[in-house]
């Protein structure tokens, strides 16, 4: 009899087989651990319904919501909210929802609603809101409009924001400008810009009055500063419209006036937004467009003697009171969430006026409600919150367009805008091919929606009636 090969001995030995089987079983158990726990497990009958809540905020904003979650959990015993701040929530929520394992509720940006809604990734909330006695008329119009898409309600608001001009009073004083008087027209802003400009002996730029690329989050929105719209319900995007061209020509004037290489070099030296190296705090840019959240960062990162003011950002349109972008943070219930009714109970709790005010005070933001309590503004630590509230109540706010290709459109316009700021470009040469490409993408997405539109609307209506 020939001896058994050594490598077969490893397999054939009963002890080894047992170890192998044990290892396989452990792997199987570990893999099972990845699956979603079922609520029908051995939980006692009186156990509370546990809701998973993913929130995009981190830092002090996350803590403000955590306080509200803790109070909700303490206020009753039927529902327990498990709160988890999540970065890059738009991607993680997409994958979790596609994988059939979404959280019960999520805090996202309102501009994501059209793409999530049209892809059937959210739960319509109309009937739940009706039953909870929530009415759109109680909210700021732009906030409630941002929560709706295709005739349905998809979210409840938490903290909205509008943008305004922030200016550095010390820099104004140094430039011989009145520190209490901000520019009121775009032409005046550019005149101030020239006065605020500082170069060293070698001609290197040390300070700009204003840069349309700072902070660079809203480059596509500049069209509204020139009286144009981001999107037209009939014609779709108009990336090559006259107002967009005007905005681009304005951006193109910067490299001509200040030198493309120097502008780039100066921008390279700008530190990250949430740091003491923020160019507004270091005095490298004297005027920026920002929202009410800027107050928190000024308090945390700007020098102790930093003096600043807030006013409507000037518009290029004669007679216009100003230009402002309106945004809102919202709460949604992803499609496939296990406990939508309980999740809405928590959302309605957050939307109680006293709780919304508490959250907005803690996050130093505006209230989404039309009416606020008498001491909301006196309790608010942002000294300019009334100015923001006045802007939020004004006409002509610009908000994201209700289309699913917004991210792509914004990226394309940002790229073209940055090119314009590199100098020697013609606005129409950049915008005309971009419009053709984006329009094709828009029509593709529209065709995708048209293929499922009737079914979706029917499903949502049925859901609303249940």
């Amino acid at each position, binding site marked *: 009899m020939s001896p058994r090969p050594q490598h077969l001995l490893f397999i054939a030995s009963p002890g080894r087989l047992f170890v192998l089987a044990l290892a396989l079983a452990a792997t199987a158990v570990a893999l099972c651990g990845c699956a979603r726990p079922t609520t029908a497990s051995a939980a006692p009958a009186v156990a509370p319904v546990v809701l998973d809540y993913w929130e995009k905020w981190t830092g002090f904003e996350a803590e403000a919501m955590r306080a509200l979650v803790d109070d909700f959990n303490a206020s009753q015993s039927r529902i327990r909210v498990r709160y988890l701040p999540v970065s890059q929530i738009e991607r993680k929520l997409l994958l979790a929802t596609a994988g059939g394992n979404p959280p019960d509720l999520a805090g996202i940006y309102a501009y994501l609603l059209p793409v999530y809604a049209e892809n059937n990734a959210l739960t319509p909330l109309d009937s739940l809101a009706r039953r909870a006695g929530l009415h759109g008329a109680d909210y700021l119009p732009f906030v409630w409009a941002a929560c709706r898409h295709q005739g349905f309600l998809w979210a409840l608001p938490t903290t909205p924001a509008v943008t305004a001009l922030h200016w550095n009073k010390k820099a104004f004083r140094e430039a011989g400008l009145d520190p209490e008087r901000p520019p009121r027209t775009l032409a005046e802003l550019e005149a101030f810009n020239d006065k605020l400009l500082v170069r060293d002996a070698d001609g290197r730029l040390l300070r700009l009055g204003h840069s349309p690329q700072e902070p660079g989050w809203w480059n596509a929105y500049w069209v509204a500063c020139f009286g144009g719209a981001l999107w037209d319900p009939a014609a779709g995007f108009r990336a090559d419209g006259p107002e967009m061209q005007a905005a681009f020509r304005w951006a193109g004037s910067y490299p001509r006036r200040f030198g493309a290489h120097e502008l780039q070099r100066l921008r390279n030296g700008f530190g990250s937004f949430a740091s003491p190296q923020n160019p507004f705090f270091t005095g490298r840019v004297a005027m920026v467009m920002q929202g009410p959240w800027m107050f928190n960062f000024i308090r945390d990162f700007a020098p102790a003697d930093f003096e600043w003011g807030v006013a409507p950002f000037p518009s290029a349109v004669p007679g216009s009171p100003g230009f402002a972008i309106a945004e809102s943070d919202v709460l949604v219930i992803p499609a496939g969430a296990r406990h939508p009714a309980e999740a809405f109970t928590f959302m309605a709790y957050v939307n109680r006026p006293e709780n919304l005010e508490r959250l907005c005070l803690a996050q130093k933001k505006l209230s989404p409600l039309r009416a606020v309590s008498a001491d909301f503004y006196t309790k608010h630590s942002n000294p300019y919150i009334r100015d923001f509230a006045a802007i939020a109540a004004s006409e002509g706010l610009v908000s994201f367009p209700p289309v699913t290709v917004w991210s792509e459109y914004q990226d394309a316009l940002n790229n073209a805008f940055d090119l314009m700021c*590199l100098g020697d470009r013609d606005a129409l040469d950049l915008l005309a091919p971009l419009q053709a490409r984006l329009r094709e993408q828009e029509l593709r997405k529209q065709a995708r929606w048209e293929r499922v539109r009737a079914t979706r609307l029917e499903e949502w209506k049925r859901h609303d009636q249940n």
Partner: protein
Amino acid sequence: MTKTERRELAAGLLFISPWAAGFLIFCLYPLLQAARLSLADYSVLSAPVYIGLENYRLLLRDELFWQSVLNTFWFAAFSVPIGAIVPLSLALLLNFNLPGRDLFRTVFFLPSLLPLVCLGVLWQWLLNGDIGLINSFLRPACEAFSALLGTPLRPPNWLSDPAWTKPALLIAGAWTTGNAVVIYLAGLQDVPRHLYEAAEIDGASPLQRFRHVTLPMLSPVIYFNGVMSVIGSLQVFGLSYVLTGGGDGPDRSLLFMATYVYRRAFDYWDMGYACALGLVLFLIVLTVTLLAHFVGRRFTHYESK
């Protein structure tokens, strides 16, 4: 087949089964799914709607796709030679029996241990056009040349000037050649001493010994590193993604094929089109790798043959 052979076959299959299962589940299945979904309009959240070859037709006239292909090939054209010459030169230097050799070997390998994100953030600062360390070295040199030539010469804005972003990425990428250096060093230490001794007896100069002994003996290693470098260069994504803060760079100068697949899939919810792009990227990488394989094989010398 005898009983022993059957048992050996069964044991062999059992031992390769983890790899085979991994390949089937994590490679072949996703590849087949990607091929299927590339024929669909698919946003991940909704059921795919089959639209035939529409995604591929769109791809042919998509200027961003072509820009990503050009950017990728531009990068690979420089990255592959640099990825061969720099580590080979370093390995040759580190192969000399000099004091501190082990320290230098460690130093050159260290950057390979850094996570890619740390590396990207580090190079973001090094390459900063205003306050970066590289430009602080270049600035005095530029000023000296400016005075000499009479024309202003300025250090580049590496990451904000479209003309300089790809060279910046090449510089940052060249820092992680530690793995290749280790493989070249192992190859160099495998070259039999007697071949050098024979060449020396025949009167070969150091350059001739390198040309006629080192290079042929090292050719399988060069070939391996070359093929891996081609594949890596065509799939470039991580470092450029971090350097640009998740973007494509100015004028989309750092939009590579892999970046474009990612953006289409996860930024624009266009998974069907991303699958088509991914499949085309796969075919391009496969073709170029096969080409490199057949060309490289002609110049590869195996001692055992």
